[in-house]
């Protein structure tokens, strides 16, 4: 209709303009050219207006159409469609919906497959005819197929059985299959036994539609089971082993928590301290005290993460050594300590016995030695004083004999002295090792000590080509030690140096640091072979041969020096190169560097550890 209007206007308007308006305009006196121009302009404006108007209308129409289409697509205004289109439209809509669902289902199926593929157990879905509708990768691989798709669609007969085996029929009837061992054949004919549990699937109306089976590999199960069992047995064995070991210990051993609770106890501990030991406070259970012991070794171990030990005199003369060791957890933290008790009464008694025995023996040895040496010396004196002067006129033979006798007696005297030293050294060393030697600590004048050592050894280097060179600092601080024992050490080192030096210089030097003094004795001897250096402080070890004609030592000098230096909390060592002599050095603490607490500890002396 509008089109026709438009056409009519399109034809009428120019005609009207040409035949009516134009002559009217000319008649008003306007030139025909101007009138044409004006009309053309008006015509053009109108045309543009029409075109815009039409465009707007068209746009509105299109939008309306689109809206209708949209609503139709939503299925709401199907009734607005001509009735003939309705069935077609609804069919199309169903198809669209199905397509969409199919896509969704495809996605769902894939994700379901992913899910069931990740199961460690085999999963199998059968339809009512026993055909495989679905299975997971575990089952496919167990049956030695490459993918689940290779099995889906096959019947049960393809897995080495009947199409409808008895178990399947039974399953459909009862609706359930409980952990039954089913045998299948894999793709290569091998037998696979699976412990299978299943349920039937039923349709909406209750008809069985097939079955879902979950199966576990028997071999795998039994392997896992037996492994678990073995592991449990091993654990049990090892637990029993350690418990037996723990219980077999003859000493009481316990485990103590940071708050002094007894966490574990071996048989011996339970025997000694009672069956109800576990759970009690250790100080209560062990020592019948109300508070932790002052010198509790467990506390030390907890504080310092180090093993430690103390000795307690518990009942009468019984001495118990208590050692504690840190017990670290998996996290490296200290959770408890092991407490090990040992009765050391006998050891201590034996030590006492040994010390008393040695004292007795040394006394018993000294008495005859005194006689031997004394009479020897008397005889030498008699011969020298009362016989030799009268032999001036005697035959040569008599005089030579006398001379020989006197020289032999000198050997006897020297050996006697050596035996005496050996007895002394043995006694000293046994005292040192038993910790029975008490040092009398005091500030020691070191230059005086060196002078004393040179004085004491002066007879040894008289008449020999040995130059004794003391090398002391201008200002020498006092050392902290036992004057007599330090002199013993220094004399020992100097006499050793003399013993091994044929000719040359023996240098006794003192070096000072803010903490320590280092005393060194350097000889000009043959030096000590490298292989002997590490043994030089052991008992009865003497490097090489001493200088000819000199009595050798007791072999206990250096071990004694070492023990004495250690008692002074110093270090002793030797440096030597063959042919270049040897240097023995030891350190001493400076008296002014020892703090008062240490001083009082030193003055209390060893042996104070016994409570």
């Amino acid at each position: 209709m509008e089109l026709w209007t438009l056409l009519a206007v399109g034809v009428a308007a120019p005609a009207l303009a040409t035949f009516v308006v134009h002559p009217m305009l000319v008649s008003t006196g306007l030139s025909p050219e101007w009138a044409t121009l004006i009309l053309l302009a008006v015509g053009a404006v109108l045309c543009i207006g029409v075109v815009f108007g039409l465009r707007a209308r068209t746009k509105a129409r299109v939008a309306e159409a689109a809206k209708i289409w949209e609503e139709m697509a939503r299925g709401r205004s199907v009734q607005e469609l001509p009735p003939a289109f309705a069935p077609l439209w609804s069919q199309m809509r169903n198809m669209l919906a199905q397509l969409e669902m199919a896509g969704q289902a495809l996605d769902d199926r894939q994700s379901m497959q992913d899910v069931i593929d990740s199961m460690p157990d085999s999963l199998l879905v059968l339809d009512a005819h026993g055909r495989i509708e679905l299975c997971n990768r575990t089952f496919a691989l167990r049956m030695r197929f490459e993918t689940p798709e290779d099995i889906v669609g096959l019947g049960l007969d393809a897995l080495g059985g009947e199409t409808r085996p008895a178990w399947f029929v039974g399953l459909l009837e009862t609706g359930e299959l409980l952990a039954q061992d089913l045998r299948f054949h894999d793709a290569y004919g091998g037998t696979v036994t699976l412990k299978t549990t299943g349920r039937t699937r039923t349709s909406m109306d209750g008809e069985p539609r097939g079955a879902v089976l979950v199966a576990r590999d028997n071999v795998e199960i039994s392997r896992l089971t037996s492994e678990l069992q073995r592991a449990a047995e091993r654990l049990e064995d090892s637990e029993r082993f350690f418990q037996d070991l723990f219980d077999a210990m003859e000493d009481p051993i316990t485990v103590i928590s940071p708050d002094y609770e007894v966490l574990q106890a071996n048989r011996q501990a339970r025997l000694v301290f009672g069956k109800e030991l576990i759970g009690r406070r250790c100080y209560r259970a062990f020592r019948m005290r109300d508070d932790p012991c002052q010198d509790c070794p467990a506390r030390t171990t907890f504080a310092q993460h180090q093993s430690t030990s103390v000795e307690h005199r518990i009942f009468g003369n019984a001495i118990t050594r208590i050692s504690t060791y840190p017990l670290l957890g998996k996290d490296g933290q200290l959770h408890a300590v092991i407490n090990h008790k040992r009765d050391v009464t006998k050891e201590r008694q034996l030590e006492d016995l040994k010390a008393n025995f040695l004292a007795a023996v040394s006394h018993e040895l000294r008495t005859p030695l005194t006689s031997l040496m004394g009479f020897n010396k008397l005889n030498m004196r008699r011969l020298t004083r009362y016989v030799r002067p009268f032999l001036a006129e005697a035959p040569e033979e008599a005089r030579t004999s006398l001379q020989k006798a006197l020289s032999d007696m000198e050997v006897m005297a020297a050996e006697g002295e050596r035996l005496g030293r050996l007895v002394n050294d043995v006694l000293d060393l046994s005292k040192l090792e038993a910790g029975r030697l008490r040092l009398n600590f005091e500030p020691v004048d070191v230059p005086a000590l060196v002078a004393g050592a040179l004085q004491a050894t002066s007879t040894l280097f008289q008449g020999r080509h040995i130059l004794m060179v003391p090398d002391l600092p201008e200002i020498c601080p006092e050392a902290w030690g036992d004057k007599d024992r330090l002199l013993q050490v220094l004399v020992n080192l100097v006499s050793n140096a003399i013993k091994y030096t044929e000719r040359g210089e023996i240098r006794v030097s003192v070096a000072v640091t803010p903490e320590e003094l280092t005393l060194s004795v350097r000889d000009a001897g043959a030096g000590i072979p490298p292989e002997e250096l590490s043994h030089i402080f052991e008992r009865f070890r003497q490097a090489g041969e001493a200088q000819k004609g000199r009595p050798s030592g007791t072999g206990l000098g250096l071990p004694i020096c070492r023990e004495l230096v250690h008692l002074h909390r110093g270090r002793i060592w030797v440096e030597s190169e063959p042919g270049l002599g040897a240097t023995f050095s030891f350190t001493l603490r400076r008296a002014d560097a020892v703090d008062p607490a240490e001083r009082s500890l030193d003055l209390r002396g060893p042996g104070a550890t016994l409570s």
Partner: protein
Amino acid sequence: MQKRILIVDDDAHIRLLLRRTLEELELEGVLIDVAEDGVEGLDKARALKPDLIFLDVMMPRMNGMDVCKHIRKDPELVGCHVIILTARGQTMPPLDLAHGPHEFLTKPFDPDHIIARAAEVLAIDLDLGF
């Protein structure tokens, strides 16, 4: 007045050795007596009032330290010089000149030293040749 030395030791050879060592003093007129244990030593000391006593420590019946204590307490034995012969390793009390022995000598002893000490204590000028 004649000088006197008393030797108290349970070991016969030590007694003999001391006697022989002191022979040269005997030649100078010094009297030498011996006792075999602590009790006999103390009895002889009280009876003979020696100027010098050599005392062993470990002896039967009474040990040397106890003998010494009795001697030093005895007002009649004030002038008696006591030398204790000790073995190294025996723990000795610190020297106490008022109540204990006047000196300790360690075994094995040097006879030269013994006679020199004895001569000195007895104030006898002796040519010992060394």
